[in-house]
């Protein structure tokens, strides 16, 4: 369908793209692979054969569940599903924000969206239990998601308003606003540690570092469905985001309802990041790495970048979580620490690459 250039050799400045199907197929493959590895590894090792048995048990309804079955169904599976939801949400949100800001450095963690959600969630936990001690737990997890959503929404709008000037993104301002909000969230969560009980203290710590350890079925079902809706909604924005790469003014002249697209993208991002952060804490840099890797092989077309980033984000989080669970056994490394170790060098490389445009 696409006319290719006559020469098969690439000239300087030419770009070779992998076909969309190959990229998305590879994404599914990577996700399946990391899901398999993550199912097996952990402080309780489940071999592929045992995994098969567990699967048969689950389908057939065995009378006497094996220990593998109990570990897998009650602890590991919800954790893996939460990891997939978190990775897909962060990968997609990163791609959406980068498309919206027209800049590859936008990331929910870097510009403070995750921190905003974490601060809101932390405040809810500590002050909520002070002021509404009678609140039932199920209502609590909904409230948590809702406040985290509000926190990330406020931050996204704030950073966007701050960094836009004459229809262009001032990247410096965007990153500085992110620094300010990250600092504020750090201070806010630090302040909450004074008010917190011991158990809450652990929770707050967990928001700062990010972990899938707290994944329970009730939360997983809620977060997984929110993220599924957010991904489905986000994917509809692919074509408008492509046009927005020309700038908002030019996109509007192509008939793109720019304001609606912006609002929708911000809402989807806030929803996905809010829901995930409320239950897993801040997992940084996934939203930076996943879209960039997809763009590297597939080009910037959002019809590939958006689903590809969701798939790769999910795979990355699952892979990182299997490492986090096993690298310092029997203890567990916080996931956010691990993604930061990988993500920060990546971010610095990107900075170096884009420094002329900052």
């Amino acid at each position, binding site marked *: *369908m*696409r*006319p*290719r*250039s006559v020469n098969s050799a*690439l*000239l*300087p*400045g*030419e*770009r*070779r793209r992998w076909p969309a199907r190959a990229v998305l197929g590879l994404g599914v493959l990577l996700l399946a692979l990391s899901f398999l590895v993550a199912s097996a590894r952990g402080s309780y090792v489940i071999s592929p054969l045992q995994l098969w048995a567990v699967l048969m048990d689950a389908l057939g309804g065995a009378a006497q569940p094996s220990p593998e079955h109990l570990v897998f169904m009650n602890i590991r599976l919800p954790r893996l599903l939460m990891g997939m939801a978190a990775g897909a949400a962060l990968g997609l949100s990163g791609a959406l924000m980068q498309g919206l800001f*027209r*800049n*590859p450095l936008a990331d929910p963690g870097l510009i403070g969206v995750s921190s905003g959600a974490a601060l809101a969630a932390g405040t809810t936990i500590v002050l909520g239990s002070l002021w509404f001690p009678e609140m039932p737990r199920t209502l609590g997890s909904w409230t948590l998601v809702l406040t985290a959503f509000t926190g990330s929404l406020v931050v996204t709008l704030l950073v966007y308003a701050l960094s836009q000037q004459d229809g*262009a993104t001032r990247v410096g301002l965007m990153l500085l606003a992110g620094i300010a909000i990250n600092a504020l969230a750090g201070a806010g969560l630090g302040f909450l540690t004074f008010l917190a009980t011991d158990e809450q203290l652990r929770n707050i710590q967990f928001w700062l570092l990010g972990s899938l350890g707290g994944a329970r079925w009730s939360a997983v079902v809620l977060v997984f469905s929110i993220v599924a809706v957010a991904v489905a909604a986000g994917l509809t924005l692919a*074509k408008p985001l*492509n*046009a927005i*790469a*020309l*700038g908002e*003014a*030019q996109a*509007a*002249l*192509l*008939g*793109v*309802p720019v304001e609606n697209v912006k609002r929708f993208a911000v809402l989807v991002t806030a929803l996905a990041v809010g829901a995930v952060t409320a239950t897993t804490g801040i997992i940084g840099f996934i939203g930076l790495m996943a879209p960039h890797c997809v*763009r590297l092989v597939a*080009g*910037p*077309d959002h019809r590939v970048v958006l689903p590809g980033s969701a798939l790769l984000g999910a795979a990355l989080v699952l892979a990182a979580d299997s490492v986090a669970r096993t690298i310092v056994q029997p203890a567990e490394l916080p996931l956010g620490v691990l993604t930061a170790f990988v993500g920060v060098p990546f971010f610095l490389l990107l900075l170096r690459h884009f420094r002329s445009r900052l």
Partner: protein
Amino acid sequence: MNARQFTGFADGLLEAIGVGVEVPGKTLLRDASACFMAGQVTAILGPNGAGKSTLLSLLTGQRAPANGMVRLAGQPLAAHTPGDLARVRACVAQETQVAFDFTVQEVVELGRYPHRRHPSPQESGIVLQAMQATAVDHLAQRALNTLSGGEKARVHLARALAQVWEPVWRKAFFPPGRPKEKTDPSGGREPHEVGERGGSISRWLLLDEPTAALDLQHQHRMLQLVRDWAVGQGVGVVAVLHDLNLALRYSDRCVVLRDGQVVASGASDQVLTPACIEEVWGVRAHAAPAGEGTQRRPQYVFEPGEGDSRGFAGD
């Protein structure tokens, strides 16, 4: 000129009627009226800061006038949906920064965005032909941001051409049930009058200094190209230009602005007299000897006038 007199064949018209634009502390345009016709090239001319780009931004609908109105096909611009407008008029800005590593071909494909719900049977052929028209097809797989300014300008023109490549039929533009149609459908001066589909809606190319980054050869090729589109396809071309000789050679009509006001408009060779040029730009124009291929249009050699150095200090 009173644009209202043309409402009889308003289909082929893009009109600015008494438009004014103000920003805090400054009037950018005051009571400006101008009328642009399909099938013609109209140049918007004037010194720096005269309001040329402001007028163009009103015509594209990017800016709403504080007073007055802009009409397309006899209807106020706001009465058309952005999606409908995008199918019949394409714009090229002075400079367009494209984010990410989009290739030339991908950027030109974006011109087809407004047609995504009613794709043409020749969809991918259009993109290739548009690239060929502006001689960027050999750059198709290059990343846009690695190209020179002039090459980028040609890519964006190709994108605009792709956007308005095919006629949009009246029935598709004014679907039944939408209370838009008021004008007499038979009164248009459309070159593509087809009864069953109600004829085509006039298409527009709005260009802001399209030749600014181009070398001499491509300046002429680009303007000849859009002129061919105007004459051959009945597309209305509106271009902000600085080079009066280019305007004389390639535009049918021109609108001359100064200090936010229309000071002259009409047939280019009649409006752009030495007297007008000296009054508006403060330079003296001498008719150049007619060379080969200058057709009947005058060309000028310019010489600085007397009153023009006061704006520059130190001389």
